[in-house]
């Protein structure tokens, strides 16, 4: 299966976690990492490999999901919403596949259009996917937990479950992590209350669009993954807030101003 894992502007965190997950749940993961994760390379790989399942992460808006350096990958032509959605992009490659579009907001619009264009099923988020940033150069359980819940989807699909079953597994995983931080071992952590709310918020925005019977492989043993935490963050940023904030606001600002017009 295909995994597009950009590393710029803070998405190194989900990408680093998925890289480890993919190695454990997929015998032959095909990964575009960092600077390789360009829209051109991704398109080429989708067409050449004819993979039935594609995981992609990056920044997102209702009209677009992006890859390395926030380059639009799949996009609607919605220039009034954002300059990132100036033209329709790559909707012709979605047909017949199951997609996990792990970007903010894409469930609102893009995922639904992908289904209209023939995507068999699309896992997406219809709001912002939140997480607590690592306080050091390492990703710990606090930061990783929402992603470990979310990426249960991929383990389920690669176990041969239907999309509907994978969605149930995804929801159950969020509940397990919620319990971990409310009544379980994680409740002893200082940030437990905050992380519990983040996990619940992420659960409620994580949706499945399209055909619940979609599958990408024959049913087999249940795939699982285990992360060795804390794990090194691939991109070192001493002051992530200062670096990310202005760029994030540009992206958000485009959409907000578009909404008002």
């Amino acid at each position, binding site marked *: 299966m295909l995994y597009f894992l950009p590393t710029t502007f803070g998405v190194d965190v989900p990408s680093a976690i998925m890289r480890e997950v993919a190695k454990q749940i997929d015998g032959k993961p095909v990964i575009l990492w960092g600077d390789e994760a360009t829209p051109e390379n991704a398109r080429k790989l989708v067409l050449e490999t004819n993979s039935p399942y594609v995981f992609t992460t990056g920044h997102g808006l209702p009209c677009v999901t992006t890859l390395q350096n926030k380059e639009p990958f799949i996009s609607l032509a919605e220039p009034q919403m954002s300059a990132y959605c100036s033209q329709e992009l790559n909707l012709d490659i979605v047909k017949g596949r199951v997609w996990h579009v792990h970007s903010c907001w894409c469930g609102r619009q893009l995922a639904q259009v992908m289904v209209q264009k023939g995507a068999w099923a699309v896992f997406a988020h219809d709001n912002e996917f939140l997480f607590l940033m690592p306080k050091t150069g390492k990703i710990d359980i606090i930061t990783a937990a929402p992603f470990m819940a979310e990426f249960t989807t991929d383990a389920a699909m690669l176990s041969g479950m239907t999309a509907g079953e994978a969605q149930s597994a995804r929801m159950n995983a969020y509940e397990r992590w919620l319990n971990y931080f409310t009544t379980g071992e994680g409740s002893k952590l200082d940030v437990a209350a*905050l992380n519990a709310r983040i996990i619940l918020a992420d659960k409620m925005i994580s949706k499945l669009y399209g055909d619940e019977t979609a599958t990408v492989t024959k049913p087999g043993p249940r795939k699982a993954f285990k992360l060795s935490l804390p794990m090194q963050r691939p991109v070192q940023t001493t002051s992530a807030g200062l670096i990310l904030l202005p760029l994030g606001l540009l*992206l958000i600002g485009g959409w907000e101003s578009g909404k008002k017009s």
Partner: protein
Amino acid sequence: MANSSVVVLRQVKEYLLQGDFADAIRLLSNYPTLYQAVVSRVIRALESDPHGYITSSNGVVYSTKELVQMVRRGHWNPVLAQFLLSEVELMLREMGG
């Protein structure tokens, strides 16, 4: 809390799930005691990580301190609306609603 609170919180949750947080806040504001209870819980959760930064796959980074100040001022942005939704959901679960 009374059954009426459950009814209000359910409606607030519905608004938030539809992305209509202006109506959610408007409705909740009509019940000052309930509003204060929800806000206090949101603030308490955020203050559990006083030096934390929350981000999303959108790249916007907020400090928890900044978010607390926004809640106190009644400035609900989309991220805070998600915290509100979580809090309402947790309260409904605690109330068996």
